């Protein structure tokens, strides 16, 4: 049978980096084809070449057996190729409908086709059980729904070859399940799907064949049925991956953080956090599980001083956190850091790094006040030394402190952030989605570090939508839904079904 897509000796170079080197493999029509590989392995680059973003330096692309020159996305679209990007490609202040119409408006006057498109969107939503309001604005939708809009766009344009670049990185288990249901439907209709993910379970669950990339090259393609997680992981990383990380016995110390009656109401009078009560003790990891958008981000913001709560008492080692008497949180996080609260935020590119700063300049973001010497002068020699230590300790690649941090892969950026926050020797560590978009090798090392911190007696609050991660790290699990804590369980009692129900907002007291 003729391959839907065939890569022949594709190479692509960015400056000094060989992103793709002589990549050759093919994808059977009507199949779901997985691509895995470490951060920076060249997966996205390869897909960008297929979608006309980049021109390959060498090699050839065959679509349905015919060699093609794809020079821009329009040409890719014309060939029936659709792509769902890792970062959504949606215009936020427009409606779903406008986003779908964009690029295939059907004429100069929008009104002429709008009704028609809207009707066909509603029909598609029904057919694929995708619940999306065509007239909603993108900015009002949760990430899960935005993801659906991306899929909708592709269905509307009847793409036959669909590329999905880490589509599940920001999705919950349920959302992933419903995405996969749609993908299976596609497959039944004979469409070809290329799926990039860092989650091996997903590869096993849904793909027919999987290609593994490392450092720009293909290291192997295997039928999914003939493989398993361990084998794939080893192929990807080049060494066996430890799935069970060592951890000390559970022996929590004094209470570090105590939250009582915490409420947060936003400017639109929507209650985001409702009467939260919990504590975290030294030497334990408390995980907050839940579907994203249920108040976890806001909780982290409040506890890190980035946002003021509406009411409630939060004490840190017995002393109340200094919210009182403030009009806004401007500058407050500095005070919290001094109290020993470190914070790895969920959205690292937005909050945790300054993209145009070098790695070194980012290595002390938040701690700049501590480093100022006489006249507030910064001691770059000392900073460089510390930074180099951090880079080698956390195995950041490349370990170049003068590189602009934007040029590091997400996983390596995360290592820098984690290294920075851990180096501050906090008493309480707030960690949001630490391994989003990060490959399994890196996940392993980040997890090991968090556990080591716990064993050293730091109180850790982990927010994660990945139940796998929660299970691997947590001592206690709090489940949040709709701004409330709907349940608490010990890790020994871990039960995905029960957590799932709690995440859905079902109390079980």
């Amino acid at each position, binding site marked *: 049978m003729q391959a839907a897509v065939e890569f022949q000796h594709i190479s692509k170079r960015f400056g000094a980096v060989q992103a793709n080197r002589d990549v050759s493999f093919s994808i059977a029509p009507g199949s779901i084809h997985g691509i895995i590989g470490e951060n920076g392995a060249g997966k996205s680059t390869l897909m960008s070449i297929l979608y006309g973003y980049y021109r390959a330096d060498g090699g050839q692309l065959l679509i349905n057996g015919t060699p093609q020159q794809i020079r*821009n*996305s329009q040409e890719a679209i014309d060939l029936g190729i659709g792509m769902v990007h890792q970062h*959504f490609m*949606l*215009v*936020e202040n427009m409606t779903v409908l406008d986003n779908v119409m964009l690029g295939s408006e059907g*004429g100069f*006057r*929008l009104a002429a086709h709008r009704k028609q498109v809207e009707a066909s969107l509603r029909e598609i939503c029904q057919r694929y059980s995708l619940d999306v309001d065509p007239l909603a604005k993108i900015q009002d939708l949760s990430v899960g729904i935005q993801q659906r809009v991306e899929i909708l766009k592709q269905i509307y344009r009847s793409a036959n070859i669909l590329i999905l670049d880490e589509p599940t990185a920001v999705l919950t288990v349920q959302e992933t399940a419903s995405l996969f249901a749609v993908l299976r439907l596609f497959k039944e209709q004979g469409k070809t799907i290329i799926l990039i993910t860092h989650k091996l379970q997903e590869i096993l669950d849904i793909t027919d064949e999987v290609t593994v990339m490392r450092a720009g090259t293909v290291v192997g393609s295997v039928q999914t049925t003939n493989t398993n997680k361990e084998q794939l992981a080893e192929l990807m990383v080049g060494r066996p991956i430890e799935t069970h990380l060592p951890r000390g016995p559970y022996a929590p110390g004094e209470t570090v953080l105590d939250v009582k009656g915490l409420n947060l109401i936003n400017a639109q009078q929507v209650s985001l956090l409702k009467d939260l009560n919990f504590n975290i003790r030294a030497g334990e990891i408390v995980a907050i599980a839940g579907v994203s958008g249920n108040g976890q981000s806001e909780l982290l913001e409040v506890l890190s001083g980035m946002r003021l709560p509406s009411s409630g008492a939060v004490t840190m080692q017995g002393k109340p956190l200094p919210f009182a008497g403030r009009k806004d949180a401007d500058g407050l996080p500095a005070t919290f850091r001094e109290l020993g609260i470190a914070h790895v935020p969920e959205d690292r590119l937005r909050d945790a790094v300054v993209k145009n700063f070098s790695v070194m300049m980012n290595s002390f973001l938040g701690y700049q006040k501590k480093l100022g010497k006489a006249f507030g002068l910064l001691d770059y020699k000392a900073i460089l030394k510390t930074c180099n230590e951090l880079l080698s300790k956390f195995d950041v690649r490349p370990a170049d402190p003068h590189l602009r941090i*934007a040029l590091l892969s997400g996983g390596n950026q995360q290592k820098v952030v984690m290294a920075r926050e851990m180096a501050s020797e906090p008493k309480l560590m707030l960690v949001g989605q630490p391994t989003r978009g990060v490959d399994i090798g890196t996940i392993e090392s980040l997890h090991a570090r968090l556990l080591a911190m716990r064993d050293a007696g730091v109180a850790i609050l982990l927010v994660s939508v990945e139940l796998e991660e929660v299970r691997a790290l947590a001592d206690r699990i709090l489940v949040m839904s709709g701004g409330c804590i709907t349940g608490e369980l010990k890790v020994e009692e871990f039960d995905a079904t029960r957590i799932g129900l709690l995440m859905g907002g079902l109390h079980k007291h």
Partner: protein
Amino acid sequence: MMFDDFQFSSILVSTIRNAPVLMFAAMAGLFAERSGVVDLALEGKMLAAAFVSAAVAFATQNPWFGILAGVGISAVIALLQGFVSITQKGNQLVAGIALNIALSGLTFVLAQFFFMQGGRTPDLGSARLFDIVLPGSDAVAGIPFLGWFYTKLIGGHSALVYLAFALIPLVNWVLYHSRFGLRLRAVGENPHAADAAGINVERTRFMAMLCAGVLCSFSGAYLSIVQSGFFLRDMSAGNGYLALTALVFGNWRPLQTALGCLMFGFFTALQVQIEGVVFPGLGKVPGSLIQMIPYVVTVVVLAGLMAKSVAPKAIGVPFVKSR
């Protein structure tokens, strides 16, 4: 006349006359900025169009040829600005300011070279644009209020005034109800999304610049062949910047922006009227203080009454195909 005491009627008429300069420029800026290109060069384009319009109108003794030539030159400059900001991915603020400075000098030099009148073009005389007298004006002229309303407020302006007002709904329609408008907004808000949807970002931005060039030229032509009857160096006198302010004020939306322009027009007119008026308690307020009124009002409005205006997200950022 009805409002004789307050001279309110005169303020309204004057507002209508003042607004088009800003309105054309602001609408021009709207196209550019909605597509993601900051247009600080409105001033320069205006000046170039004012000069070329006046020079050609004088040479041909026909205002319409003048306007046409102004459109041409302004469009060419807009495309040059596009080349720098879009193709070369240069700093858009720099490009804008540079063009303003260069054109301020060049228009003078050329005017001086061709006409030898100190950077001024000769009087256009009959080659100016005439005011349109609405049919039946004579008949209603005597009727109180209606006469004023028909012959002075809505009648008796030049064609460009009507064009300026007609532009408001037109721009609104193009922006929100046409394919071009949809793409334009997408490109200015999230060019990566537009690109992924198969839209040629650069071409769309060039189209927007072309619109900006054409619209801005009317502003210049209005200055030279309607309001003054000749070109004089730097006659744009900051109007390009005021138009940008109106654009921010109007949140980059056509109707609100036009309203902003009218507001400026109104306060300018008001300021003219109350200069020299004796205020109870205050006495005669010095003219130089009264001249501040439009600007103070803008600051107050921006600071207080207005919700934060939200610029197109991708504004000022050249489109580069990777993150």
